[in-house]
């Protein structure tokens, strides 16, 4: 039973991270389209922000793996 709940939790965490990283990606693409000359800055900030969001999601996933 707890295994099933943990799997659902991992799925929810992935949904959250997916929405967050998707937003970052779409906004970054818009920004690049608007100002192609700062593509380098936008790209590194995009990866940085995506990594920060991913961190929160990964904590949830790790917890759901190790919960028994």
């Amino acid at each position, binding site marked *: 039973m707890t295994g099933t709940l943990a799997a659902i939790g991992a799925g929810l965490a992935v949904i959250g991270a997916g929405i967050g990283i998707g937003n970052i990606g779409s906004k970054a693409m818009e920004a690049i389209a608007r100002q192609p000359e700062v593509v*380098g800055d936008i790209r*590194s900030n995009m*990866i*940085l922000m995506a*990594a920060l969001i991913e*961190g929160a999601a990964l904590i949830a996933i*790790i917890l759901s793996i190790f919960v028994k």
Partner: protein
Amino acid sequence: MSKFVAILKKRYKRIIRMKKFVVPFICLFVIMANTFIVEGAETHTGESENATHNHDECSCHHEEKYDPGASAFHHIADANAFHLFGDYYLPLPCLLYSPGNGFTFLMSNAFDMHHHGSGTKAIDGYVMVHGSIMRVNQEGFPMDGEVEVSCYTEKEAADGKVTHQVVYKEKCYDLDKKTSYDGGIMGGGVTSFYDFGMTKNVFTMILAFLILFFLFRKAAVSYITRKGQAPKGVQAVIEPLFEFIRNEVAIPFLGSKYEKYLPYLMSIFFFILGLNLIGQLPFFPGSGNVTGNLSVTLVLAVIAALITNFSGNKNYWQHVFNMPGVPLPIKFILTPVELLGLFIKPMTLMLRLFANITAGHIVIIIFVSLIFIFGQAGENLGGSILGGVMAVPLTLFMMAIELLVAFVQAFVFCILTASYIGAAIEEHHEHH
């Protein structure tokens, strides 16, 4: 018409030229995937050795069951012996200590490992179970010298805790848990012995260190001998990566003081990248899952935290303990949050690298497990072939993704460390 033929010929030539690269590339991937399949097959044969438990009776019997999860966790774990192929293992030095019996030093091949990394001998009460050393923790077992043991088994208690057991003269003896260097302070439980040996991960780290040392030495030498000329060879590989980290990470985040932290940032980037790439190889020199090991990423994160906090200036600590420009009641909430942030930042660094690499490896192993799931653990040949047809492209795809992840994670670790250090050394500016 002749013009059309000429174009076709040209196109064809290009395809032939492409083939030269593409065919060996695909072959390499298929070989890699096959290595996994062979490893998986061994896992399966090892899995069949289970014993029944009718209280005192203890015997080894064969049980056909394949557990993809357990096999995945076994393959990403650290080990005391390096699996080469078949029943051959690279012996690694083991330095074991137990408070009662003192030190034991041996090479891991002394356990005489057969399939699946399980030894057939017990030495001074130590046994090799699935590639890692454990110690007998029950009265009656000969704790001195070398004895033959028949097999290993697992006992599940009522609360779901699994204890490994060794079968010796048709009797089961409980084994202690795998050792932890911290003596069980950080969880994991206190063990009756300590393992200071060189494990598979340590071997891989030394290998990565040597490879990086020779690459960078070569690049450095060519900076002297080829002054004023265009970069060539190793130098041309290292230089763009180096310049990328310097110009995109170090200078924007650290400003004018970047040179002080550049050696650390470069070491962390190339060390993680090297380990990630070595971990991608499924056969001998690679296959050590170092950056997917929580202890390794813990140490990397602790080093990052120490450098950040020791280089923090007055401004940084003021922002932690007494945020300027914030009303007093808010400070009661903000200060604990900032204090927690000091620990959460390195913790996320640790977990991010660990989880990304581990997740990639687990997914690859699960894809390879499709062969055994569809093949009903070797009973159904048609199913195995179907599983193989599915597993190879999926594994290929995951490996391509992992190659990307290897670079991105090294970059992310580096850029986040740089941003934390950058926040700590930032000079005071007007915002209150």
